[in-house]
């Protein structure tokens, strides 16, 4: 099976929430087959690196194998959060797509949903 490198967006979906200056971002694979690879590759360190420019200080990852899903809790990710951020998105609600877009993963093609726009691109890329 061909392995392709794709944005996390190709294999998972996500939702961001906030409490104060802390963000939580769930990462949920479209296909359960991808989960073990995501657990291996989407680490606390890589998620922290995505938020470095915002001053994030720590990431804690929780693995929920039965769903399956991961939950990332990112400390000081929101520049004070809705109380004091100068940005438009004090709640950090758009940040799920920052994680989905900036982190790439290497996965076999069958981890990508059959109808995914990425699958067509990935197949073309292999040729």
């Amino acid at each position, binding site marked *: 099976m061909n392995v392709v490198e794709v944005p996390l967006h190709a294999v998972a*979906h996500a*939702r961001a*929430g906030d409490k104060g200056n802390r963000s*939580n971002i769930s990462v949920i694979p479209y296909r359960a087959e991808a989960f073990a690879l995501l657990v291996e590759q989407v680490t606390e360190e890589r998620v922290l690196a995505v938020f470095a420019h915002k001053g994030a200080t720590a990431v804690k990852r*929780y693995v929920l194998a039965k*769903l399956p899903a991961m939950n990332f809790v990112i400390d000081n990710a929101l520049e004070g959060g809705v109380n004091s951020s100068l*940005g438009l*998105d004090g709640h950090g609600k758009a940040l799920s797509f920052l994680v989905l877009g900036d982190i790439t993963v290497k996965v076999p093609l069958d981890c990508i949903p059959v109808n995914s726009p990425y699958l067509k691109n990935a197949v073309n890329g292999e040729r």
Partner: protein
Amino acid sequence: MSKVYIGCGAGFAGDRFDAAVPIVKALAEVKGERFLIYEVLAERTLAIAQRLRRENPDQGYSPFLDLYLPLVLADCHRHGIRIVTNMGAANPLGAARRVHALALELGIRGLKVAAVTGDDLLGSMSEAEIRREQIIEGIPLDHRSIVAANAYLGAGPVAGALATGAHVVLVGRTTDAALSLGPLMHVHGWKAGDLDLLAQGTVCGHLLECGAQVSGAYFPDPGFKDVPDLDRIGFPIAEVDADGSLVITKPPGTGGLVSRATVIEQLLYEVHDPNNYLTPDVVLDIGEVEVEETGTNRVGVKGARGKPPPATLKATVCVDAGWLGEGEISYAGPNALARAELAASVVRARCRAIGIGDPVRVEVLGTEAIFDGNSGGRHPSGVQNTGGEYRVRAAVRSPQRKVAQQVSDEVLSLYCSGPAGGAGVRQHISPQVSTVSILIDRARVKAQVAVVEKS
């Protein structure tokens, strides 16, 4: 054995006003105990409500009450669907009186309305006492002026209010989940020690509390996660048995989608440690929860575990936080990005020149600036695509309104003093409230239920 049906008509103040109409129609056709909940009380909303109440003691309940309830009150009463909502805000008793007045206007007879009070700490503690409590989130209160301080009540008082036979229950600050768990405790007779049942009920409340976020909204990503008919999305209905069995669904004939994926996204929404989600009723553990599609737009959720609740309650203290000043201007067409970046550099230089002391954020929207930090972006400089449409935005927070206005005005002045083609300036100066979370002893908080007679 009686099944409980709970529909959620709003997940925040400003959610679609008519969303509950299809829920009421669906609930009218099933047998069992039926409830309609509305969650409209964000942390800051309460501060605004508290200010309104100080100006007029009859006010301070949610101004949205008059937008949501007239659409459903008569049908709910006719079909025996009971309403539970935090539209009480800073004045649950005032809200209850308003519901009576509304019933009179609508020709509804015999409506019984209950209010839950006791969350308002300014009524039971001095400001000095509040300032001494342990802060778990937010910066020290110092001498900032306290606008509101409310403890999060649990589901017990909501169940107590339903036990009076009230058709409508108005609360102020409770956990959002309590709006659902209260009815479940009331009907199914769940007690404080039934930890796994309380956990399932809390999951139910958590899934419902953001309205359509569990039934296909805040979810669509075209080509990847498609959802039909968002414009007439069905808000959620939970079906809960006495043994805690839980199914999430939505009214027939509505748009939206209830699937494993929509439910899992909402299950983890605003959850931090999934094994220890603290509420006044139970410490929820969703680590072993299973989510299963049992039919079209029907998803079963099971396996929540409960542990005894903490000895303390969380409370939110709202304080004055000065002013936010914002200004925006657009640039479009050839070389738009360069013109926008020039405008941004002009605003930065002007803010320095006029001596703005507070940090100012100046950004170019259209470059994924929403992901950037206040002190800089994640993108390397030098964007290839220079045409298109970009919007320059400046923002400042200051204790002084004047500073907020000055920074905003530096964007306005770009009209005649900035780069070519600047257009569409919008300015916004707004007072700010900031929140701090504290922990307080349960003994300090005495929830009370009042049946409010006609006004």
